[in-house]
């Protein structure tokens, strides 16, 4: 390989210029065709939630203006609370979405307690199932990723990837060449996702795009299956296992913060099943009594929060999200847990 520009480089340069012009044109044409095809079939770009996106939010806990308000939980928090709206209603705070769909939150609470730089408030979803010792570490891989692998380099990558996913259907693996070929060979089409994510990790569920009744039945069946697979548990042991939470809450309080445990609204089959297996008076109420240093709020006790229709008995339709977020902010202020 020659190491400097010379007249003999010109023909080779022209050859490569031609090849690259053709290559770029062909690649752009193929991608544009694929994009147009999927859009014509009714698909829209969507940001994909990931550990990197979570880590980007986790980083925001320690930077920016306002008191950090960490939103912890699973799907009910991620798809129910609108962080942007919450910030508008509670300008003193900087809401950060750290809830993870299908992952209970105690590993993240433990991590925030151990983080000496965290001086804020935690709003942590309380679901008796998720506080079983066996589920504590569900979000630990996210925490580990943030502490061990997350770097400014990945931050930049994720920002650019988020922009790409926001604008291109083909940025989603469900529309990649392999998935497309599989659909072509086996028939069928990609799933029409009814959840839309934002860069702040909040998600919107649009129940108009799905059958809420079948989703409700699916959730109920899943819950019964999960209940059947639960390890042996009793209120005494459950509460005893949660003793380390005293230290976590204490550490956060010592830095001027606080922890609010919030039971999100659930209806119908979900509520019945939970009450059957984890009766509120034996689990949640005992927890309230055992942890006077924390704040507790149950949506079922507040008509403004429990009035919402939950199409699948567990999650909010995105059209109710702003009103629900407003009601939650107002209730937290009313109870004196937060201030405007």
């Amino acid at each position: 390989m020659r190491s400097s520009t010379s007249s003999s480089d010109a023909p080779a340069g022209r050859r490569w210029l031609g090849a690259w012009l053709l290559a770029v044109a062909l690649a752009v044409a193929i991608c544009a065709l694929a994009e147009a095809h999927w859009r014509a079939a009714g698909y829209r770009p969507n940001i994909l939630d990931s550990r990197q996106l979570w880590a980007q939010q986790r980083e925001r806990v320690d930077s920016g203006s306002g008191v950090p308000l960490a939103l912890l939980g699973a799907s009910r928090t991620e798809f129910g609370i609108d962080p942007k709206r919450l910030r508008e209603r509670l300008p003193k705070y900087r809401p950060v979405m750290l809830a993870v769909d299908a992952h209970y939150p105690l590993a993240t609470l433990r991590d925030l307690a151990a983080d000496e730089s965290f001086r804020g408030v935690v709003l942590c979803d309380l679901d008796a199932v998720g506080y079983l010792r066996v589920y504590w570490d569900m979000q630990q891989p996210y925490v580990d990723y943030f502490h061990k692998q997350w770097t400014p380099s990945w931050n930049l990558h994720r920002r650019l990837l988020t922009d790409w996913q926001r604008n291109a259907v083909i940025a989603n693996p469900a529309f990649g060449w392999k998935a497309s070929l599989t659909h072509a060979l086996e028939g069928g089409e990609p799933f029409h996702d009814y959840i839309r994510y934002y860069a702040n990790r909040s998600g919107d569920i649009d129940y108009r795009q799905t059958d809420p009744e079948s989703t409700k039945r699916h959730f109920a069946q899943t819950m019964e299956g999960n209940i059947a697979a639960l390890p042996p548990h009793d209120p005494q042991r459950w509460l005893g296992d949660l003793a380390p939470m005293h230290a976590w809450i204490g550490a956060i309080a010592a830095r001027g913060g606080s922890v609010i445990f919030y039971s999100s609204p659930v209806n119908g089959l979900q509520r019945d099943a939970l009450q059957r297996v984890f009766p509120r008076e034996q689990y949640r109420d005992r927890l309230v009594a055992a942890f006077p240093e924390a704040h507790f709020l149950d949506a079922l006790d507040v008509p403004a929060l429990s009035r919402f229709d939950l199409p699948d008995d567990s999650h909010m339709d995105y059209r109710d999200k702003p009103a629900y977020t407003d009601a939650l902010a107002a209730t937290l202020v009313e109870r004196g847990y937060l201030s405007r």
Partner: protein
Amino acid sequence: MQFDSFTFVVFFAVVLCVYNALRGWAARKWFLLIASYVFYAAWNPLFLPLLIGSATLDFWIARRIHASARPGARKRWIVATLLINLGVLGLFKYHAFLLDNFAALLALAGLRYVPARFDIVLPIGISFYTFHSLSYCLDIYRGKFEPTRNWRDYALYVAFFPQLVAGPITRFTQMREQIETPRRTTRESLGLGCALLVLGLFEKCVLADTVFAPVADTFFNAVGTAHAAAAWSGTLAFSGQIFCDFAGYSTCAIGAALVLGFTLPINFRYPYAAIGFSDFWRRWHISLSTWLRDYLYVSLGGNRRGAWRTYVNLMLTMLIGGLWHGAAWTFVIWGGLHGLFLAAERFTRERLLPANWQAPALLRFGYGLLTLLLVTLTWIWFRAPDATTAWQAFAHLLPGTAGNGTDLDSGQMFAVVGFALVTAVHWLMRDRDLLTWQQRLPAPVIGIALGLMLAMIMLSPGDNHAFIYFQF
């Protein structure tokens, strides 16, 4: 940062522009060195001082070796650098392995010892840059060349970002002239280098991550549930993944360096078309196998001390080569098996069939297939997390171990077909040099091939998988 990240695209574009905008060669080298350190710090800035310190120490020790007139003093310096470099590598990479095995030994003697667990993160690329530095000091010790007087040039040789974290493991003799002579991007190096980058990313994103990794991961994460056909598809998938992942990285590295006007050595030469195991190791991770040959096998005496000692040296070299890949007995077994294959091949060639070694084409092809089969099966030891899983994987390759199912899903079929295509390409190209071969292709053919690969890369979104060799 990884080659398959958006960050690298931005980083490389900036580096390319600034590098070519700077006028003096010294300034461009300083810039490349700083860029290389930024590239490395992108993973974990805390390990940057280790990289700089290691390079600086070896730069200084090499000069001390060269300046020492007495053989004893020279020996002391080389022993010092070996102890320091291998000590640091051992601390970061092998401490847990050594402590665990020490505890197991004590347990055999009835003594109970529970080693403390240190949460030590392995600095990325440490195995590679340690070997860079060691080869430099050993070559100075052997009097092959004089050490460079310029710290920046030496530091750039060690840290040059395209090859810093996963090779190719270059020798100073391969880089010295390139570092000392001014160079810049040419139109040809830009065109060809970018083409190699696209080829490498195609191997990594399209083949390794999209076609092979899901099937290999599914199999090795739940070996016990796989029927024979699934077990074979998983094994072939990992064979495809490990090649496309690592060769993809090397191709990207060679391409990125070429864009900047540097030529890195070829690291893979169609290894799945190897005819025999010595041929395989002339084609697979060439920079490591030649390093082990020149600095370990030769240092042990090579083939100069009789037949029996030659076999011992061969085995030792491969066992240590296996251990270099990771601190686990599975890697040692993988290396040991390759050592056995090499020894058996050598014995056959020298003692049993010396006259017939240049066999007819059909026989050579058959031996090539046997080589491929054994190499593929040996990868199980490389991929399995422990010996139990590896044995289980072998058992499930036999029909009937987990039912008599033969159905493969579309992903498994893609992996099997993909592996067959990769192997076919290796056989078609086995005696060709890609860089020479591409010169005969018309520009439109290259353009269409590049365009298709680019489109496939764009249409292979998903999580960024770390390159497998980063962990080594």
